[in-house]
């Protein structure tokens, strides 16, 4: 005799019982509630991050204008990689894209010094360039980045010797997309040795050093604000997709649950009726 797949409600043959489907339905419904509320939370955080990005962008591009308007040498052999990410996941491809870009760069020219911001990037990169880590920062992503955070990172970078700093970060494009970019920042020696700097009148080395240090912090701050906006918008769309998928799964499971329930009722009716007719 062929065992009907619909009659699995007695638990025969490893098919789903009514109880199993009920439990799965309950857990998927919970998941949908969680992802839906995560989406709303990141929507609120994103609105705040996007608002903060506007002055940060004007500030950061202004600070880096000297590098933009002049061609300083950023091809130095002794470069420090600064990878910007955060501690929290469930944000789509943000952290893995940073990891991909770093791995690609490492394949081209091996990285010798790296400073990692964010536990996620650290976890991805520790196997590839773990021995080059100069320091790692965490506690990133819970609260919005402040300028003091950027100052701490800049201080750490400046405590090492380098020719160039390469900042890998997620640049915010719009609410549905971001680009993972690599931004080179020249060192003080690189700027001082370039003839273009003499266009600027009466700049003594103390002022230039001041400018370099402050601008590094400004550029790091700007990049972190871009990362923040990219991450929150990416998390928003990831959670929205998860909620949509959970909704579809709930529909499919509900249909299966109803079919199974009707099959149980039909089976019980048949047994009662055939039992009754056997007595006659």
């Amino acid at each position, binding site marked *: 005799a062929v065992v009907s797949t619909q009659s699995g409600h007695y638990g025969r043959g490893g098919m789903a019982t009514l109880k199993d489907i009920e439990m799965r339905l309950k857990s998927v419904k919970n998941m949908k509630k969680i992802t839906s509320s995560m989406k709303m939370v990141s929507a609120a955080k994103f609105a705040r991050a996007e608002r*903060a990005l*506007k*002055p*940060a962008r*004007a*500030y950061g*591009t*202004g*600070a880096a*204008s*000297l590098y933009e*308007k002049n061609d300083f040498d950023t091809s130095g052999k002794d470069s420090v990689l600064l990878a910007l990410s955060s501690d929290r996941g469930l944000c789509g491809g943000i952290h893995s894209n940073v990891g991909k870009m770093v791995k690609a760069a490492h394949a081209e020219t091996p990285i010798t010094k790296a400073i990692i911001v964010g536990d996620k990037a650290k976890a991805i990169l520790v196997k590839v360039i773990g021995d080059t880590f100069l320091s790692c920062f965490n506690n990133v992503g819970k609260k919005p980045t402040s*300028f003091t955070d*950027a100052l701490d990172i800049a201080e750490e970078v400046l405590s090492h010797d380098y020719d160039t700093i390469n900042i890998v970060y997620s640049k915010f494009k719009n609410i549905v997309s971001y680009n993972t970019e690599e931004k080179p920042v020249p060192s003080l020696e690189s700027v001082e040795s370039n003839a273009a700097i003499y*266009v*600027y*009148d*009466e*700049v003594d080395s*103390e*002022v*230039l050093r*001041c*400018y370099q240090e*402050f*601008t590094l912090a*400004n550029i790091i*701050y700007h990049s972190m604000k871009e990362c923040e906006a990219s991450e929150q918008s990416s998390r928003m769309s990831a959670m929205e997709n998860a909620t949509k998928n959970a909704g579809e799964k709930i529909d499919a499971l509900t249909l299966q649950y109803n079919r199974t329930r009707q099959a149980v009722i039909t089976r019980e009716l048949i047994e009662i009726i055939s039992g009754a007719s056997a007595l006659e």
Partner: protein
Amino acid sequence: MAFRSLVVRSATLCRRAMATEVSSNTFPLTFGSPNKSIHDGSHVKQVDIPSTTGHFGILPNHVPTIAALLPGVVSIQTEAGDVQKFFVSSGTAQIHPDSTVMIQAEEICDLGDIDVNAARSGLEAAQSKLASASSEVDKAAAQIEVDVYQSMVASV
């Protein structure tokens, strides 16, 4: 016919000359702090900044330079003619060869928002901190506090 075209041509030349005169009267200024952008490329007539090499004013076509800011008042004369004054804690300024000016200040405060009494009591607290500071780092930090408060009190 020829005379008329000559008149038209000289009129256009006059207009073009006047147009360049107006635009060379102002220069684009980007002035902000990490969380507040005051000007983002808007055209202004003059900016006065407190720098380590002295308090100086910037007009269009100023010689390119890079300056570090001291705590003090940044005064901006906008294209419309009104004067904006802000207190800045510190920062940097760049004047580029194309006459664009970028100023990054760590903290910007509208001059009207400063409470003189709070600034004076802050100055006294900072001075006592400087007197009691022991390490070089503490002394330097306290000195910076004193400088900022002194400048704040002087500016209102």
